[in-house]
C-alpha cells in the first residue's frame, strides 16, 4: 500500500514509510500543505486542470513544471508568481503568500526531493474532539426543574450575579400564555390565575401550565417554530412562483405532532422516511413534506429537464437543499459546506456530502396521494397512465412510419402542394377561431350547434366554414364533423317535428373541406334557426370534438350575412376564451384562402391525389391497428376518470404523473458522482448512500451496491439521524426547546454546532436536557417544556423596582443575560402580533383549525406567473380571520406587514428570527389596513361590553396588554377616547409597546 499523505488542518501528517531526510521534511512540512490546500482541488485525478494532477507530485517534475534545482527556470514558479496582485495560478483566487512561494522555490532549488511514493490528498478534518460530537454525558438524577435552577444559580453565584425576584402573576400568565399558545390570556383567565395564586401559587402555576400544554393552541404556537426551520411555504419560489395547493397537510402534521407530543425520534424519522417507516402510512407520507418544503425551480425541472446540463444542475441544487435541511435541522451540522471541498472546520469530507446526495437520488418533490385511494387504486391508476403513455407512443411511431412511407410516394407532388398550401394559408388566421364543443371520449356522441336569427327571414344559402387551428398541425379544417346534417326551421325552437333537413351527410364520411366553404342551397325558404348536428365527431388526438369556424346565412339578392351577431346555442361548449366562443361562430371573422381560382383548383387536385396515395398506402392491418389503439386510449381515459382523485400532499415521491420534462424515477436512483468543486462537468467516482462519521461507530455507509433501493437509503439515513448514540440530534432539539421556552438558546447558533458555531453557555444543562429527552420512553417534548417553565429561572422578572442598582451591576458582568439573571423580555413575533390583533377584537376564529390555508391576497394572472396582490384583499373577510399559522405562505411576494415584523423567510431554514425595529415596521403597524379594520372591530367590542369611557379604556388594556393601564398611561388614553373615539384608542393600544413586548 502506498503511504498516503494527509495534511490535516493543523498540518498533522501521516508519516510515510522509511526514514525521513531533511529534504523530505521540507516538502512535507512546507510544500505539500500548500499544494493540497491551494492547487489540488483543480489538479487531481478526477479534475485535471491543464492536464495536470498533483496527487502524485512526481508529475510536476515529469511534466516539466519543475526544473530540478532551478526555481528561476521552473514553469510552476512563473505561474504562481504574482504581478499586480494577480497570479496566473491559482486561477480565480488569491495568489500564494510570499512565504509559500519562497518555500516552493527553496524546495526546488534544493533539488525538489520527494519522499518515496508520496501522495497528496485534500486537507480534511479528522478531529472529532469537539463538544457537540462527544457522547452526551449526564448523570444528574432528580427533578429536572430543580437541577436546572441549581445549575443556573450556581453559575450566577460564581459570576457574582444577583437574580431578579419572581415576576408578578399578571406578568407571568401573559408570558407563559404567549410562549405556549401564541395568544394573549383573556381578562377572565388573568383574574382567575391572580386569585388562585393568592391561595396556592404553586398549584395555580401547575394548573395553568397543564392547561396550556393540553390545549390545541400549543401545537399552533410550537408548530410555527418548527415550520421556521423546515423552510415551509406554499409556493415553489423561483420563476413563476406557482402555488403548492397540497402543501398544508404537512403543516397540520407538524401541529398535530406537537399537540399529541409525538416521541421526538419518531417525529424526526417520519420526516425523512415516514412513507416507508411509519405505522400509519398516510401520516408518514405527509411527514415527508419536510423534505419537499423548500423552494423548487419549476422551469428548470419541467421545461429544461435532466437531458440538459442546466436541468442536471437544478437536480443537484434540489438534493443539496434537502441534504442541508436534514443536517441543519436534525444534526445542527452544516454539511452543505462540504460541496466544493472537505469541510474546513468540521469532520465532514466532500465525499460524505455526495453520499447524502445518493440518499436522495431517487426522489423528487411532487404531489402524492396520502389518503382517499387504496394502494390497489393507486397502482391501477399508475398502470393505466403508463399504458396510456406507451400506447400513445406506439401509435405515434406507427403513424410516423406510415407518413414517411407516404411522403416517399408523394415526393413528386409534395413540393408543389406545400407551396400552394403555404400560399393558401398566408393570411394569418384570426385569433377568434369559432365554436368548440366539449370533448367527447367517442366519435359517435351526437353534438349540435345552432344559430337563431331572431325572426324568420328568406334565405338564399348557408355557408359552413371550418376552423383554422394549429392544434397538432391540422390547420384548416380543424374539428369539422365527419358526418353531419343541417336542419332549419322558421319557428323559434327547432324540434323533430318542425325541422327540415336541407343537407344530410350522416350515412357516409364527408371529406374535410379545409379552407373551402361548404355551400348549402336553401332556395329562398324562410328560416329562423339553422342547426348543424354532428353524428360522427372529428378526431383530435385521443378524443373527439365538434368545431366550426363560421356559419354564414346569406339573404337572397345582396348576399348579406344575416347571421352576424345572432344568438348561438349548442348542445355544449367549452368555456369561452380568447380563441373559442359560440359567438365567434357568427362574428364574420374566419379563415380565408388566398389563392386565385386556378390555383385553388390545382390545390384541390393535388390534395385529392395525395389523399389517394394515402388511401392506397393504408393497409387494412394499419387501419385496424390505429383504430384499436385509439379505442383503447379512449377506454383508458374513461377508466382513469372512474378512479377517485384521492387526497394529495406535496411531499417526496418516486411515482407521479410526468409534467413536461419532469419525470418520475419510479424508484430507480440517479447515479450520483463525486463532483470536484461541485462542478457537474467534472464527475468523479460513483457515490453510494451514506453520511459523515460524526461519532464513533456511527453507521456511515448505508448500502454497498449500485442498484440500491432509494427507500432503503432514506430509512438508513432516518435511523442514522435518530440513533441513541448520535450526540447531535438530542443536543440539537434540547437546545431548540430551551430557545423556544426562554427566548434564547443555550447554543447561539442552533443550526450549527460545529467549530464555526457558538459554544453552549451551559453545556451541562444542554446535555441534561438532551439525555432526559433521549432516554424518556415517550421522548416527550411537552414534559421537558413543563419542567422548564416550572423553574424559578423562567418565572424571574425582566425588571423590578428597587433592583435598579443590581441590574446595573449585573449588566456590567453579563449584559447579554446568558446567565438568566432576569427574564429575557421579547417582542411579539409577527404571527403573535397578527393573532392578537384579531383575538382582542373578538374576530379570531380560534376553532377553525387545519385544512387548506386562507389567503390574505388576491391572485391576479394565475395562469402564468401569479401576482399575489395583498393590497386587494379585504381585511374584513372572515375567511382570513384564522390564526396566522394557517396562512398561505408565498415565497416570492412575502406578506408585507409580517415581513416588517421579521417573520421567517421560507427560502432558508431560520433557526433564530431577527428582532428588528424599523420605521417601515412602525408604518405597517400604524397604517396597515388590517390594523385599521381590527381597531374598528375592537372598538365595537368595547362599545358593546362597556358603558363608560373609563371602562372602555380599562377593558382595551386588559384585553391587549393583559393588565389595566397604569396612572401615567390612563390620562392620554382617556383624552384620546374622549376626543377621537374608541377606534383611535384601539389603534393606539394595538401599537403600544405594552402590547408588543412581553416582560
Amino acid at each position, binding site marked *: 500500500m502506498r503511504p498516503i499523505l494527509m495534511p490535516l488542518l493543523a498540518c498533522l501528517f501521516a508519516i510515510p514509510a522509511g526514514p525521513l531526510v531533511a529534504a523530505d521534511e521540507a516538502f512535507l512540512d512546507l510544500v505539500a500543505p500548500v499544494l493540497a490546500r491551494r492547487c489540488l482541488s483543480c489538479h487531481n485525478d478526477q479534475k485535471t486542470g491543464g492536464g495536470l494532477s498533483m496527487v502524485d507530485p512526481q508529475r510536476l517534475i515529469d511534466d516539466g513544471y519543475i526544473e530540478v534545482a532551478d526555481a528561476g527556470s521552473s514553469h510552476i514558479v512563473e505561474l504562481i508568481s504574482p504581478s499586480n496582485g494577480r497570479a496566473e495560478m491559482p486561477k480565480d483566487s488569491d495568489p500564494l503568500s510570499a512565504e509559500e512561494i519562497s518555500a516552493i522555490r527553496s524546495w526546488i532549488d534544493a533539488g525538489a526531493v520527494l519522499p518515496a511514493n508520496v501522495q497528496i490528498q485534500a486537507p480534511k478534518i479528522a478531529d472529532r474532539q469537539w463538544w457537540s460530537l462527544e457522547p452526551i454525558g449526564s448523570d444528574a438524577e432528580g427533578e429536572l426543574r430543580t437541577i436546572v435552577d441549581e445549575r443556573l444559580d450556581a453559575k450566577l453565584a460564581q459570576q457574582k450575579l444577583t437574580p431578579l425576584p419572581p415576576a408578578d402573576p399578571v406578568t407571568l400568565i401573559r408570558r407563559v400564555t404567549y410562549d405556549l399558545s401564541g395568544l394573549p390570556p383573556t381578562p377572565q383567565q388573568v383574574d382567575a390565575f391572580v386569585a388562585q395564586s393568592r391561595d396556592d401559587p404553586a398549584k395555580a402555576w401547575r394548573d395553568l401550565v397543564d392547561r396550556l400544554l393540553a390545549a390545541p393552541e400549543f401545537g399552533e404556537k410550537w408548530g410555527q417554530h418548527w415550520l421556521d426551520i423546515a423552510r415551509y411555504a406554499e409556493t415553489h419560489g423561483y420563476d413563476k412562483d406557482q402555488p403548492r395547493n397540497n402543501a398544508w397537510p404537512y403543516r397540520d402534521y407538524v401541529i398535530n405532532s406537537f399537540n399529541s407530543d409525538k416521541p421526538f425520534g419518531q417525529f424526526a424519522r417520519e420526516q425523512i422516511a415516514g412513507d416507508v417507516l411509519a405505522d400509519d402510512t398516510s401520516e408518514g407520507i405527509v411527514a415527508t413534506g419536510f423534505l419537499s418544503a423548500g423552494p423548487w425551480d419549476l422551469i428548470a425541472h419541467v421545461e429544461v429537464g435532466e437531458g440538459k446540463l442546466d436541468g442536471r*444542475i437544478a437536480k443537484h441544487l434540489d438534493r443539496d437543499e434537502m441534504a442541508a435541511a436534514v443536517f441543519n435541522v436534525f444534526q445542527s451540522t452544516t454539511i452543505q459546506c462540504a460541496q466544493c471541498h472537505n469541510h474546513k472546520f468540521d469532520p465532514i469530507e466532500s465525499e460524505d456530502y455526495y453520499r447524502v446526495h445518493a440518499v436522495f437520488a431517487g426522489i423528487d418533490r411532487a404531489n402524492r396521494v396520502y389518503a382517499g385511494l387504496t394502494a390497489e387504486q393507486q397502482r391501477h391508476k399508475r398502470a393505466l397512465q403508463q399504458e396510456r403513455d406507451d400506447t400513445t407512443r406506439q401509435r405515434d411511431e406507427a403513424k410516423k412510419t406510415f407518413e414517411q412511407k407516404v411522403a416517399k410516394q408523394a415526393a413528386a407532388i409534395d413540393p408543389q402542394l406545400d407551396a400552394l398550401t403555404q400560399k393558401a394559408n398566408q393570411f394569418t388566421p384570426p385569433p377568434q377561431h369559432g365554436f368548440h364543443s366539449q370533448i367527447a371520449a367517442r366519435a359517435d356522441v351526437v353534438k349540435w350547434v345552432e344559430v337563431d336569427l331572431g325572426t324568420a327571414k328568406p334565405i338564399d344559402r348557408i355557408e359552413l366554414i371550418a376552423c383554422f387551428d394549429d392544434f397538432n398541425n391540422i390547420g384548416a379544417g380543424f374539428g369539422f364533423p365527419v358526418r353531419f346534417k343541417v336542419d332549419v326551421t322558421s319557428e323559434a325552437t327547432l324540434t323533430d317535428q318542425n325541422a327540415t333537413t336541407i343537407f344530410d351527410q350522416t350515412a357516409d364520411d364527408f371529406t374535410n373541406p379545409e379552407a373551402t366553404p361548404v355551400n348549402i342551397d336553401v332556395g329562398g325558404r324562410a328560416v329562423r334557426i339553422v342547426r348543424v348536428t354532428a353524428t360522427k365527431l372529428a378526431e383530435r388526438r385521443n378524443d373527439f370534438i365538434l368545431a366550426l369556424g363560421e356559419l354564414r346565412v346569406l339573404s337572397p339578392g345582396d348576399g348579406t350575412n344575416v347571421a352576424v351577431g345572432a344568438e348561438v346555442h349548442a348542445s355544449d361548449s367549452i368555456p369561452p376564451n380568447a380563441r373559442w366562443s359560440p359567438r365567434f361562430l357568427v362574428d364574420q371573422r374566419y379563415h380565408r384562402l388566398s389563392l386565385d381560382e386556378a390555383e385553388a383548383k390545382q390545390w384541390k387536385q393535388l390534395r385529392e391525389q395525395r389523399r389517394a396515395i394515402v388511401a392506397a398506402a393504408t393497409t387494412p392491418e394499419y387501419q385496424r391497428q390505429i383504430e384499436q389503439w385509439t379505442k383503447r386510449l379512449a377506454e383508458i381515459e374513461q377508466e382513469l376518470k372512474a378512479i377517485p382523485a384521492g387526497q394529495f400532499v406535496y411531499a417526496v415521491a418516486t411515482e407521479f404523473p410526468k409534467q413536461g420534462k419532469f419525470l418520475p424515477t419510479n424508484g430507480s436512483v440517479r447515479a450520483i458522482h463525486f463532483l470536484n468543486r461541485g462542478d457537474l462537468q467534472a464527475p468523479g467516482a460513483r457515490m453510494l448512500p451514506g453520511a459523515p462519521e460524526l461519532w464513533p461507530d456511527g453507521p456511515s455507509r448505508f448500502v454497498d451496491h449500485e442498484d440500491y433501493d432509494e427507500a432503503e437509503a432514506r430509512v438508513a439515513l432516518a435511523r442514522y439521524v435518530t440513533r441513541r448514540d448520535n450526540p447531535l440530534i438530542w443536543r440539537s432539539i434540547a437546545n431548540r426547546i430551551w430557545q423556544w421556552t426562554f427566548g434564547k438558546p443555550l447554543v447561539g447558533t442552533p443550526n450549527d454546532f460545529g467549530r464555526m458555531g457558538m459554544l453552549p453557555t451551559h453545556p451541562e444543562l444542554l446535555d441534561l436536557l438532551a439525555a432526559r429527552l433521549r432516554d424518556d420512553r415517550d421522548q416527550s417534548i411537552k414534559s421537558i417544556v413543563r419542567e422548564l417553565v416550572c423553574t424559578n429561572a423562567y418565572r424571574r422578572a425582566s425588571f423590578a423596582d428597587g433592583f435598579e442598582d443590581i441590574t446595573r451591576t449585573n449588566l456590567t458582568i453579563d449584559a447579554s443575560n446568558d446567565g438568566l439573571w432576569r427574564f429575557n423580555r421579547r417582542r411579539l413575533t409577527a404571527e403573535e402580533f397578527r393573532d392578537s390583533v384579531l383575538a382582542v377584537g373578538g374576530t379570531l376564529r380560534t376553532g377553525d383549525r387545519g385544512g387548506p390555508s386562507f389567503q390574505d391576497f388576491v391572485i391576479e394572472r394565475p395562469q402564468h406567473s401569479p401576482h399575489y396582490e395583498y393590497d386587494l384583499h379585504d381585511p374584513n373577510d372572515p375567511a382570513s380571520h384564522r390564526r396566522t399559522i394557517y396562512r398561505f405562505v408565498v415565497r416570492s411576494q412575502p406578506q408585507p*406587514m409580517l415581513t416588517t415584523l421579521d417573520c421567517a423567510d421560507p427560502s432558508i431554514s431560520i433557526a433564530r428570527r431577527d428582532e428588528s425595529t424599523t*420605521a417601515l415596521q412602525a*408604518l405597517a403597524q400604524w397604517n396597515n389596513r388590517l390594523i385599521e379594520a381590527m381597531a374598528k372591530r375592537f372598538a365595537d367590542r368595547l362599545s358593546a361590553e362597556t358603558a363608560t369611557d373609563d371602562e372602555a379604556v380599562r377593558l382595551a388594556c386588559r384585553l391587549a396588554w393583559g393588565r389595566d393601564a397604569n396612572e401615567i398611561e390612563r390620562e392620554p388614553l382617556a383624552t384620546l377616547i374622549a376626543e377621537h373615539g374608541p377606534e383611535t384608542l384601539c389603534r393606539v393600544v394595538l401599537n*403600544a409597546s405594552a402590547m408588543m413586548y412581553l416582560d
Partner: protein
Amino acid sequence: MNAATMHRRSLLRQGLGGLAGIALADMLHREDATADVVLHHPPKAKRVVQLFMAGAASHVDTFDYKPVLEKRNGEPWDPGETVELFQSQPGDCFASPWKFKPYGQSGKQLSEIVAPLGDVVDEIAFIHNLVGKTGVHSQGTLLQTTGFNLPGFPSAGSWVSYGLGSENENLPTFVVLPDHRGFASNGAKNWGNAFLSASHQGTVLRPSGKTPITDLFPPDSDFITPESDRAGLQALKQLNAAYAARRPSDDRLDARVRSYELAAAMQLSATDALDLASEPQHIRDLYGIVDEGSHVDDTEINAKAETEFFGRKCLVARRLLERGVRFVQIWSGNDNGFPRRNWDSHENVARDHGPLALGMSRGAAALIKDLAQRGMLDDTLILWTTEFGRMPCSQGSEGRDHNPFVFTNWMCGGGVVPGTFGESDQWGFRPRDREDATTVYDINATMLHLLGIDHKQLTVRHNGIDRRLTDVHGHVLRDVVGG
C-alpha cells in the same frame, strides 16, 4: 475610523450569534452612524443605481457589435461545438435587426436602439465577457441580484445597506423601483435581506401607485382623520416613552419610540422625493416623462410608453439619490407573461427589444447627464445588468434563445474608468478568451471596492459560514477602477 472601531463593529455584528440588535444599533446610533461606518479604503462612490433588464437583454443587439452576423446572416451557425440551449436548437446566424454606428471620441459601436446613450458613451465602462452559470431565468436573476443562483441570500443592495448604513434615516437605505406591470422572476427575493436584518431589505417604491410605499399613509377610513392620526401618535409616544422609562437598559424600547418619529419623517421625505411636478420641464423632457404618466397606452408595446415607464423611475432614482438613498434598483421588464413586456425575446427580438431598449437608453442617458450636471456622477455608480445575454443564432426566424455563456454589463460614474474591458468572441457566443471571463463576483467586488469596501471583509456568519456577497470568488476589475 480605526481598526478598533472596525473590530467593535464586527463584534457587534457577529457576537450576537443571530442578528438581533444590528438594525437597532444602526437606528439608535444614528447621530454617529457615519462615524460608525468603517471603510476599508477611501471610497470613490457613495451610492449605487442598478439597472436590471428582466428577461435577459441581448448584447448583440445593443452594446456588443458583431459585424460577422451581418455578413453571415441566414447562413448556418457553426461555433465549432455542440451547444445546448434553453428552449431551442441553435438556428442560423441572425444579424441584429438594427444598424450599429460609432459614437463619442472612443468610436464605440452602439445599435440604433441604444443610440441615446451615444451622448454619454465616453463615460461608460463596457464589460462584454460576463458569464453566467445556467440559462434558467430564476437562477440567472438571483445570481445577478444576490451573487448566488439559489434563493436564501441577501441582495447586493442589502449588503451595501449593511456595509454603509444610511445617509438619510428618513428614507430607506435600499429602494427598489419594480416594473409596475409585475415583478421579474423570483419577485421580492431579488431585493430580500435574507439573513441580514430586515432594515436592509429593499423597500419597494411605486412612483405611480396610490401608495408609493406600502402602508406609508393611513388607509381610507371613517375614523382616521389628520387630527385623530396626530393625536394618536402623540398619545402613543407618551405611552411608549413611559413604558421605556420604566424599563431602563433596554435600547429596543427607545428605538421603538423613535421608529414612529422616523415613520412620520419618511412620509414627508418619500412624498417629497416623488414630487416630480417640481422638476422643470426641460428635465421632465430629458427623461421622456409624459403627462399620461403610467396610463400611457401600451396595448401594443411601444417606445413612448417604455420611455415614460423607465424614465420616470430614473428621475425618481435621481431624487432619491440626492436625498441620501444608498442603493436604488430599477427594473425594466416584468414576469415572463404574455403579451411580453420584458426582454425575453424568444419569438421576436425586433418587437420587444426595440421599444424596451429605446426606453431604457433614453432614461439611463438622462440619468447619467443629469447626475453629471449636478456633480453627482463622480460619486454615483450606475451598474447596468441583466440575467444573461441572448444567442447570436436565431430561434424561430425572429427570436433569440438564452445565452448564459457570454453577455454584457456596463458601469458608469462612481470612479470607473470608461472604455471597453473584456470582449466576447466574434459571434458574441462566449468570451473571446475563455480562460479570462468576468463573473458577477468580479462586478460585485468592483462595486464594493468603489464604495470603499473590501469584498472579502464584508462578511456575516450564517449557519456556520462566513457569507459574502462574492461567495468565495471575485476580483476587483483593476482596469475599471483605474488601478
